[in-house]
């Protein structure tokens, strides 16, 4: 009788973990950011943001120019990156106005179902200037908010 109760309890814990995972995967979750590509909007370490996954999942057309999004990296499937949306399908984009990664006269038309992404810190960002327009199917979430650093979480 006792072992029966224990096994049922542990299954319930597993079930709860699954439910929490599904919530994080489909609705939203806090996540920790790292890397210099979004400076000065987001700090390069210890930055916590809230991802909103539900809005994009329900309405893929809700992505607008200027939004901050997280997406799976097109060059490394295991990484998730955070960038800003610059161009939507059909837009004509200047690849790199500074002329560093491409001649500043080069323009591209963004194909159907793709977007142009860019980091706010152009000097330290690998984005559409390197790998071109990315598919909208790679988008995971829109950034909803950043969590104000609590004194416990702020690093020296």
């Amino acid at each position, binding site marked *: 009788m006792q072992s029966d109760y224990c096994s049922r309890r542990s299954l*319930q814990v597993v079930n709860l973990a699954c439910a929490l995972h599904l919530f994080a995967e489909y609705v939203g979750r806090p996540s920790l950011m790292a890397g210099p590509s979004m400076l000065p909007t987001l700090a390069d370490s210890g930055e916590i943001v809230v991802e909103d996954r539900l809005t994009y999942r329900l309405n893929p057309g809700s992505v607008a120019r200027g939004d901050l999004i997280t997406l799976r*990296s097109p060059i490394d499937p295991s990484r998730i990156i955070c960038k800003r949306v610059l161009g939507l399908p059909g837009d004509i984009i200047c690849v790199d106005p500074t002329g560093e990664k491409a001649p500043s006269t080069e323009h591209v038309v963004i194909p159907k179902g793709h977007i142009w992404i860019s980091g706010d810190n152009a000097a330290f960002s690998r984005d559409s200037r390197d790998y071109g327009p*990315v598919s909208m199917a790679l988008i995971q979430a829109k950034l909803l908010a950043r969590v104000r650093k609590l004194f416990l979480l702020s690093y020296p």
Partner: protein
Amino acid sequence: MFNHFWTWKNPLYWLPTGFVLSHYFYNVNVISGRSMQPTLNPDTSSSRDVAIFHRHALFTRDAYQRDDIITLRSPEDPRRTLIKRIIALEGDVVRTLPPYPARDVRVPIGHIWVEGDEPFYSDDSNIFGPVPMALVESKLVCIIWPLHRFGRVSKAELPLSRNGPSFRRAMAQFDRERARESRVTKV
């Protein structure tokens, strides 16, 4: 009422576990469309194929192999899911088919080249180019319906008799496999 609903005796209570198991391990799907003919949904079949897909296979090592049949989110429309065959992996050079502007393409890092088995009816990499690996969702394990084609999708095997429809089908499959391989320069 509320307390009675959320007890472990209610099957709905275990929905999260079931959903996670099917999402990360095996799930069953009906295949629609003719882009994978004659491997899937052949003209001789009156109903659509039902197959088991494995998702966890993508988290293992050597997840992506040439000739694997996979499902992926369409790079042109995030709402659609496609079923295609992996033709080439990152670094390979592929000789493309007509709609594609360039004759040869080197598949970039993190990307794969996917095609349907029936090029005439297939919207594949020859239309939208190499696709990021991150779009791949699951791998085909085996067909479960119709019953006479139950089992894994295997490479062509020569039947014992040297004539009849099964022999001709096997030879046609050989030809397709050879044509597929001849277009890829592996690295």
